[in-house]
């Protein structure tokens, strides 16, 4: 499986949809800061892993896939929902990698340099998530089972 960048996919997304994600992301970040100041960093920190954009991304993904199929002549399709499920499966791996991000910042930040720690933690998140995705993709139980003759 080759990972590709499809810049043409950006044309499917409207400005209103970009704006929605910007506002959602901004609101969650502002709310997290407010909660941490109001109830303390232990409670506020939980919201660092709040699924801020997943609902919007999954909805857009289903909508785009449905429109594609409608243009191809299919009035009803579950393909959009399956694409959103695939996105959610990726999010499971991303969230597992996020635990590595949190653990590295927790243990390193009090003694370390802020930009370097965050950069290392981001690298740790990316490496762990990609590794999990790769293992999930290539593990024998992930392949379709074929009956032996």
């Amino acid at each position, binding site marked *: 499986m080759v990972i590709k*960048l*499809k*810049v043409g996919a950006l044309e499917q997304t409207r400005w209103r949809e*970009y704006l929605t994600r*910007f506002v*959602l*992301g*901004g609101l*969650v*970040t*502002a709310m997290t*800061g407010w909660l*941490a100041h109001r109830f303390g*960093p*232990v*409670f506020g*920190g*939980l*919201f*660092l*892993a*709040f*699924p*801020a*954009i*997943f*609902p*919007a991304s*999954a*909805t857009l*993904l289903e909508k785009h896939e449905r429109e594609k199929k409608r243009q191809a002549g299919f009035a009803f399709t579950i393909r*959009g*929902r*399956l694409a*959103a*499920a*695939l*996105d*959610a499966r*990726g*999010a*499971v*791996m*991303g*969230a*597992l*990698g*996020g*635990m590595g991000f*949190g653990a590295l*910042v*927790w243990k390193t*930040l*009090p003694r370390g340099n*802020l930009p370097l720690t*965050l950069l290392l933690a981001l690298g740790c*998140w990316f490496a762990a*998530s990609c590794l999990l*995705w790769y293992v999930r*993709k290539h593990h024998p139980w992930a392949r379709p089972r074929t009956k032996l003759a």
Partner: protein
Amino acid sequence: MLQMMIRFVVGGAIVSFFALLADVLHPKGFAGLFAAAPSVALATLTLAATTDGSAYAALEARSMIAGEVAFVAYAAACVYFLGIRHAKSAPTAVLLLALWGLAAGALYAGILS
């Protein structure tokens, strides 16, 4: 107020950047990794460490691990309802946020506090 506005703009920009990456990446299963990117964490931890100190930000990062456990439960439930039950994405993804809240709340009450 200015702090909140800075958080809003920085958070919105970082979240949008990761969402944009998820849009252009293919296959979709791989792009999904970016739906759980630590975008809110990057913005919040940078601002928290700058204004409140490293120890404060480190405490937030420790709680983030529990938040990610709740995120795994949330995303796994989304896989089940969208991929197997074929439920509609928008209501499913929004309603299941309650599951994230329950899981995060239970971990906070049971382990963190």
